């Protein structure tokens, strides 16, 4: 395997919250190889978006380190790593035209003269499936799908080596979602991008990724290539996630299946030992005391005593 493009080492991010501390990300180590797409999946509050923001340097880590291309992330050129945001309504400045929004990254990084920038914006708009005339429009004049295409164009205009997609399609309607996913697939292929693809939807993550990492309450519980994870999930939480996803086949959907009991605990005061133990069907007394480390089991890395 080649040297990773992105590497997280023992990454920790805590936020002070009133009386306690939100342990948003607690000791996560990950790596993404060049050209690879790593999917990151989990429910709300599992820390996946915090990881995206740490990688994009919106947050500073509380502990641990992030390496980009073998060097400290802080020294990396920001242009090499770009992000596609979740909410196509909130991610574009309402007071700038689409053209201006797309031009901003070029201005910041002093790329090209006015004419070159204009051409680049027009070409990219076309590439993401939008008419170049849209450059004169304001975000509120566009549909959700069009806005998300603009968001993708903005992420690509600096020719990044890597993109981070944080719930990039979860705010879109089903019929538009497929369009945007296809666009992402095409562009990734065409530009040889490395990607971190984050979503709560395991099916989407599996479709888009080479490898998948599953998070629960700020920690990694399982990591494997997409097919082993999908067909032979090892961690009880991964299994529960797969079981909980609604089936599209009405006859299969009616068969009873094991559902997780209880609710997601608060990340302010996570359970001791294995954080999943209060909801885990396999939990033993040991799980209450001892946090399982991530270990290699077959093709997967799993953090469970009984996997």
């Amino acid at each position, binding site marked *: 395997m080649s040297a990773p493009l992105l590497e997280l080492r023992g990454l920790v991010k805590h936020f002070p919250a009133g009386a306690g501390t939100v342990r948003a990300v607690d000791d996560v180590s990950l790596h993404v190889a060049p050209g690879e797409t790593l999917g990151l999946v989990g429910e709300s509050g599992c820390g996946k978006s915090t990881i995206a923001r740490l990688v994009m340097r919106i947050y500073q880590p509380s502990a641990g380190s992030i390496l980009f291309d073998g060097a400290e992330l802080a020294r990396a050129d920001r242009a090499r790593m770009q992000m596609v945001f979740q909410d196509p309504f909130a991610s574009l400045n309402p*007071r700038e035209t689409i053209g201006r929004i797309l031009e901003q990254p070029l201005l910041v990084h002093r790329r090209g003269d006015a004419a070159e920038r204009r051409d680049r914006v027009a070409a990219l708009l076309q590439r993401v499936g939008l008419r170049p005339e849209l450059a004169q429009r304001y975000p*509120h004049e566009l549909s959700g799908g069009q806005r998300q295409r603009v968001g993708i164009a903005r992420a690509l205009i600096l020719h990044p080596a890597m993109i981070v997609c944080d719930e990039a399609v979860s705010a879109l309607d089903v019929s538009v979602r497929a369009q945007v996913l296809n666009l992402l697939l095409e562009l990734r292929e065409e530009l040889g991008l490395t990607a971190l693809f984050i979503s709560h939807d395991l099916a989407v993550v599996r479709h888009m990724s080479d490898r998948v990492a599953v998070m629960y309450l700020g920690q990694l519980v399982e990591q494997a290539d997409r097919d082993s994870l999908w067909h032979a999930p090892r961690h009880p939480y991964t299994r529960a996630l797969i079981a909980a996803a609604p089936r599209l086949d009405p006859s299969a959907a009616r068969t009873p299946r094991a559902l997780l009991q209880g609710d997601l605990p608060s990340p302010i005061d996570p359970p001791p030992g294995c954080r999943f133990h209060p909801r885990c069907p396999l939990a033993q007394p040991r799980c209450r005391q001892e946090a399982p480390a991530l270990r290699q089991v077959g093709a997967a890395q799993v953090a469970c005593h009984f996997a």
Partner: protein
Amino acid sequence: MSASAQPGLLWRLSVNRSAAGGAVLLALILALAIIGPLLWPGDPWEMAAPPMLWPGEDMANPLGTDVMGRDLAAGLVSGARVSLMIGLVSTLIAAGIGTLFGALGGFYGGSVDAVLMRVTELFQTVPSFVLAVVLVAVFRPSVATAVLAIGIVSWPATARLVRAQFLLLREREFVLAGETIGMGTPRLILTQILPNALPPVIAMSTLTIAHAIQTEAALSFLGLGDPNVMSWGTIIGGGREQLAEAWYVCGLPGIAVVVTVLAFNLLGEGLNDALNPHLQRR
């Protein structure tokens, strides 16, 4: 902010009844303040006619005279200039301090924010008018002290608004996007946050002007006006003793204050309506 950044703002303002009404009223008051001295030349402090002449009694002094026989029309015109000037300048000071404090606190958060917020809270705890009274009294009444005192007591509301806007916008995805494409802090604030944070501040500033004009009138009413300047509050304060016999001496300048403040309030509300939906619609 360029006009093109707000599509249809002027249109929205013109169809907004309160904004249009406020603008018309304001234009009238401004016109009066500018051309008034041509219509009623002479010193508003000078005795022009017999004292306590009722309005309409003598067309040479259409609005009558006060206890000292000073022409009320000339006084009102002078008051308009003073009120508008003090209102505008003190609001500029307040908006400046408020925006700076609010922006710094909202953008940086943490201890910077904590310190600035404590200061803001302090200024909101101290009764602002009493503070203005003390400042003017200690530093001697003059136009300059009035402007400064009103400015100093008026900024907290703006600071809170700007801070709230910054806190909100700071977490918005388009601002984060600006950060991820590598924008420096000044560019981030100037191109991404401020254009979105300012509209409500502008709307609020018109309300601040209105409040400043009221405060100035109250200060002069208490006898803390510039002794060399005839302002509306001064006339009201002077007419108090003869309130029962000649209420118009207090009444007319009061109406002038009401109309001016009303004009700014209407304009501010109109601006608020016209500027806000853009952001609220997301």
